[in-house]
């Protein structure tokens, strides 16, 4: 068996990669910069800093999985590549949280959609949070740079039928639709982005910035959990970390102490506030963990007259922004419309049911089509987001209450999704709500949605985009970091991930994370080299 992929070759060539599970005694290491997290933010930061000549240590709690492990199998991938074995939820259990936990973070398992931060969002940040330097014009070159680095471009092949049905429905109803830019190179159009790209076509952190950093002498620890940042006077002195056993979930008693001049936290919008809270870092205005956003997602499934095979082909290639900013950036809750891939385990987890009814639901999977709506949260006074706090054992959890404002947006999204599916020729439509039946006409579906009880648990809700919790802003009383991701109170700490977004994005966030991390790391490199 021979592998010629970037990771196998790099390991062969002597990259500094340390598996926490192989450590047998406590040790200490030192670098110019320690980076916690290897996803979109951590990977970008590591590559830019390492290329500038700084010594870099990367810390990842999850394990290193790559092509040899990516066998297009849902159960194995969900167990190993996702937070809490794909069982992570919000505090009350009402919202399923899809989030990566492996080298490359969520970029290893995302569906490759690559959108710039919408102009309306950036302009809102300029106005509301004093972030003048993040205007659309100022950010454009950073988006361009990252689009090149990650091979992002609108998908050129025909969309699979699952996505094309969204296009057809929008066409029929006069709604706008567009082709999704994807970060792929030589994509085989298989449909397995969510379980680890089997062909290395996906240009996430795992195939780009992580190898780039390691080629430039960075050190990567995986299977190593960042426990706490330890302050000495007014600066962070060290990161205390704990090695995980080879199962990836059991902490060992081996500790690793990592010292550095500067620390970058990029452990996600749940992990980063969690680490800062555990570390009891200064938070004089109690902003840490507040204003967490998730693009709450609801879904609709349809039975189509033709075979859809929703498990094959690029998972996301068509979207509609018809309703995203329709009522203004801070008006009624807007939503982006996309399509999810449907493999058997994913479908069995998304479509609620049991017994013969469920047997029938899943037996018709090849004819099933699904639309999802991603609600844009955080732009309205009645959408203040959730809160990350710590459990007794120190692990972070997200509490996300759904306001009436968001429920209204979610109900509107149910109407829109059903209408689109019927317009595209659906025989039957079922909304992902415990009250929903299969409906055979738009009129029936509409009448039923009118009566839906919009409550936690009855509405099936998901999030694949976690944002906020270490929000940026010019006013330290209202934010955790400044517009460069620099911590307001701790001078040798930066945060370089989606946790710094002061609102949600209104689009899949990976490019927003890459671009801000690139911009802020370029500045950080200059600062540290000066």
């Amino acid at each position, binding site marked *: 068996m021979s592998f010629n992929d970037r990771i196998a070759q790099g390991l062969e060539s002597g990259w500094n990669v340390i598996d926490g599970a192989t450590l047998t005694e406590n040790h200490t290491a030192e670098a110019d910069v320690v980076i916690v997290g290897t996803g979109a933010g951590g990977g970008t930061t590591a590559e830019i800093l390492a290329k500038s000549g700084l010594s870099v240590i990367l810390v990842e709690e999850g394990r290193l999985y790559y092509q040899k492990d990516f066998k297009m199998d849902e159960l194995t991938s969900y167990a190993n590549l996702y937070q809490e*074995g794909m069982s992570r939820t919000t505090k009350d259990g009402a919202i399923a949280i899809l989030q990566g936990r492996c080298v490359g973070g969520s970029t290893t398992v995302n569906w490759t959609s690559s959108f710039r931060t919408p102009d309306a969002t950036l302009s809102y940040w300029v106005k509301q949070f004093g972030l003048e330097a993040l205007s659309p014009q100022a950010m454009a070159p950073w988006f361009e740079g990252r689009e090149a680095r990650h091979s992002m471009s609108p998908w050129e092949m025909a969309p699979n039928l699952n996505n094309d049905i969204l296009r057809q429905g929008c066409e029929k109803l006069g709604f706008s639709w567009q082709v999704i830019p994807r970060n792929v190179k030589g994509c085989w159009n298989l449909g397995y982005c969510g379980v680890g790209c089997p*062909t290395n076509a996906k240009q996430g952190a795992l195939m780009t910035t992580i190898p780039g950093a390691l080629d430039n002498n960075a050190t990567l620890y995986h299977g190593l959990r960042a426990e706490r940042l330890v302050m000495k006077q007014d600066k962070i002195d060290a990161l205390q970390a704990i090695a995980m056993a080879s199962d990836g979930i059991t902490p060992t008693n081996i500790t690793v102490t990592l010292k550095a001049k500067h620390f970058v936290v990029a452990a996600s919008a749940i992990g980063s506030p969690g680490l800062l809270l555990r570390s009891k870092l200064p938070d004089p205005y109690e902003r840490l963990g507040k204003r967490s956003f998730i693009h709450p997602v609801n879904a609709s499934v349809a039975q189509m007259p033709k075979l859809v095979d929703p498990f094959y082909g690029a998972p996301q290639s068509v979207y509609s922004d018809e309703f995203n900013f329709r009522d203004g950036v801070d008006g009624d809750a807007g939503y982006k419309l996309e399509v999810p891939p449907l493999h058997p385990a994913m479908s069995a987890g998304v479509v609620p049911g049991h017994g013969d009814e469920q047997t029938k639901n899943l*037996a*018709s999977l090849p004819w099933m089509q699904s639309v999802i709506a991603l609600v844009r949260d955080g732009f309205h006074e009645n959408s203040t987001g959730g809160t990350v706090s710590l459990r007794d054992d120190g692990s972070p959890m997200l509490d996300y209450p759904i306001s009436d404002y968001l429920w209204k947006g979610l109900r509107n999204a149910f109407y829109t999704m059903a209408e689109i599916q019927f317009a595209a020729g659906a025989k039957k439509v079922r909304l992902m709500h415990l009250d929903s039946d299969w409906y055979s006409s738009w009129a029936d579906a509409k009448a039923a949605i009118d009566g839906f009880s919009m409550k936690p648990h*009855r509405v099936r809700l998901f999030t694949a985009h976690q944002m906020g919790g270490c929000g940026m802003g010019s006013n330290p009383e209202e934010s955790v970091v400044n517009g460069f991701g620099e911590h307001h109170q701790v001078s040798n700490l930066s945060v370089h991930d989606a946790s710094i977004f002061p609102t949600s994005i209104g689009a899949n966030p990976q490019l927003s994370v890459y671009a801000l991390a690139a911009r802020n790391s370029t500045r950080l490199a200059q600062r540290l080299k000066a």
Partner: protein
Amino acid sequence: MTDPLTLPEGQDSISLDRRSFLRTGLGGALFLGTISVTAGLSGCATSPAGRLGAVETRMDARYKFQFLTADDIKLFEALLPAILGSALPEPANARRMVIASTVERIDAGIQKFGPANQKELRQLFDLLNLGVTRVTIARLWSPWPNVTTKQANGFLERWRSSSIGLFNNGYMALTKISNVAFYGYQENWHLSGYPGPPEWAVQALPQFRKA
């Protein structure tokens, strides 16, 4: 719709803070912090079942249960026929095998859930396994090995249609881990018409080649 919290006549209300009950997650704070202790005192199995004999597992004596207790296994053996319905094979032997292997994959999946969700599931399972709460919360009079598929289905329907979010959440937890473990498994892919990864890609990719 009946309220599952209504107790059978003549029984005292068990002490539970209804508001915290409604607020919390899968089992949440509930009164379940104490249930695990009570379960232990009352003779419920509280430690992972480990390796069961071939007769007990009816399948693979090599599998070592790391999370599910002997009582949890009985719970799922009673629930799975109601959850999976006609997706389960008819012949008794095949049926037992499929149920046993699904319970094993449920255990393996929960292994990766991590401590926080494991704690919530522990509380949920203990709640369902302990007699007094099985009767009051699930409204099932018989212990799980004696619960018929029809009764198990009734329990699932009650939790699904309940106006109490916690029961909806319990319904989702039980059905979701079962459905995912069952339909996601290669041997059951045909039940959802999924042919598996494209054969041409499997042929072409190095990770599928034998050493």
